């Protein structure tokens, strides 16, 4: 779907490419949104640069399982520039072996709970996160539910259920 980009967004994307060069891997516009894929090592510096440029509001952090043999996991950061009223997605691809990426809570504190949710569902660790605990499943749970190999009905016996007789107290 061809969509004309606003001038503010065009200048931001051009400046991003000139400033960071080959760390910006791909810019594409699926269905009218703007996705900027960057190298995971440059995530924090690009995040701080975007924060200066007006992208001060983070709406969500999304994790995906691409189920490809190279770069299995994907993390998207849903950013909003309130001055220019533009939405931008910052994307990183992570390998399957020990997926970890720097946490952006130093730039956007709102990402705290969103990164915890991605950790809970996919097992992606965020370095520098102040409190990386699971969000929805209890800490005792040993699996990461939204990975593609996890079955829909769960793994029997992986989480305990209370008994049918009252406890001793």
């Amino acid at each position, binding site marked *: *779907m061809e969509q004309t980009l606003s001038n503010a967004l065009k200048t931001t994307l051009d400046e991003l490419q000139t400033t960071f060069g080959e760390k910006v891997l791909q810019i594409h516009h*699926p*269905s*009218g*949104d703007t*996705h900027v894929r960057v190298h995971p090592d440059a995530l924090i510096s690009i995040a701080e640069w975007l924060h200066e440029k007006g992208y*001060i*509001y*983070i*709406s*969500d952090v*999304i994790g*995906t*399982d691409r189920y490809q043999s190279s770069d299995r996991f994907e993390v*998207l950061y*849903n950013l909003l520039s*309130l001055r220019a*009223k533009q*939405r931008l*997605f910052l994307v990183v691809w992570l390998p399957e072996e020990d997926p970890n990426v720097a946490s952006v809570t130093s730039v*956007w*504190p*709102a*990402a*705290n*709970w*969103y990164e915890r*949710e991605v950790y809970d*569902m996919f097992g992606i660790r965020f370095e520098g996160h102040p*409190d990386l*605990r*699971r*969000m*929805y*499943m*209890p*800490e*005792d749970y040993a699996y990461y*539910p*939204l990975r593609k190999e*996890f079955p*829909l009905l769960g793994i029997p016996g992986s989480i*305990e259920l*209370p008994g049918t007789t009252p*406890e001793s107290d």
Partner: protein
Amino acid sequence: MKQTDISSRTESTFFKKHQERLYKSLEDKHTTVEEVDVDDPLNSKMILNMGPQHPATHGVLRLVLELKGESILKTKLDIGYLHRGVEKIAENKTYQEFMPYTDRMDYLSPYNNNVALCTAVEKIADVDVPERAHYIRMIGCELARISSHLLWLGTMVMDAGAVSFFIWTFKEREKIYDIMDQLTGHRFTVSHARIGGVVNDITPEAMSYIREFVETFPAQLKEYHKLLDRNRIFFDRNENVGVLTTEDALRLGAKGPVLRGSGYAMDIRKLEPYARYDQVEFDIPTRLEGDNLARYYVRMEEMHESIRILQQCLEKLPKGSVRADNAKKAYPSKDEVYYSMEGMIHDFMMTDTGICPPEGAQVYHAVESPKGELGYFIQSDGTGHPWRLKVSAPSLANLQILENILDGEMIADTVVVIGGIDPVMGEADK
């Protein structure tokens, strides 16, 4: 008691590791190095667990509070007691089959969730929706917004002490349930919006119900204003309670009325308009104080604005069909299904395979639900089932705020602040 002794003093019988990590992170939160006298109970801090089952937590929300006397020092939230794995279910259903699950997420205003899913799929698959369907969706969304704010009002005021208010707002909600019953066939978790339009047209009887509601509701709102707007008790309980400054609100990612009550006027209906919101006139109520009273005013004024939008929609409602006519992208009408062979085959294909967006397509679309920006992120792999469907729930963002604004308040304010934030656990826990 020394700070590190908390975990050894709790004896949890289930999910031990989970409780340990939770209490440990409560201690670690803005760490202070302090040793308090073991023998003097008045000098020590108390950990209070406002458990998942509590009359005042809206749904199943667990708060672990560290108290010094009556004031709260720090708090940690524990959510996930209503987690179902809706996103995993979505990977196994077609887009239309997923519609009832969206209803049950923000179950106070189900219409908004339906429209959110529909607009996201229509954006990824490039489906044109007829005008009449847009206006019907807007009518449904605004009625759902009023219904959700009425429930918020009833429960917040009931938590602050005035129990009979709950009954009055439920009386009005029953009228909205009657409208939904006439329009969609179900009181409450309607699945009225379909990809490409809506299910059925508004019957003349439903139209008369809606008109009657639009005419009588402003008088009711005035009654509520008369009771609460100059009420000394309500002011004392809500003024300067749970203050959230504008910078904090933007930094911590507040959404919806919480952000608008703290001074920033962000509304997805104006920022990225969908469904003909750019053709009706309405204002975005905003307040600067950021306390609970500001959030109350913002939501009351939003109800007034909703009535204004409803009146304009009823005037502007154009004639036409209510669903797109494309066989691969929208369900055929029931006349076609019952009386023609092609219609029946199309219906079967839509139910079996469903709409197939192009492979590799991704989309994000947000709507303004009563709680804030509700967004759907869909990645498609070319089949009728989404590869990844992520729901961006506003209640999750607002609950994160709750961890920060309760520090320093009294314990009795917890209940009122939770009411002011208005979380819905079904969508926060997905």
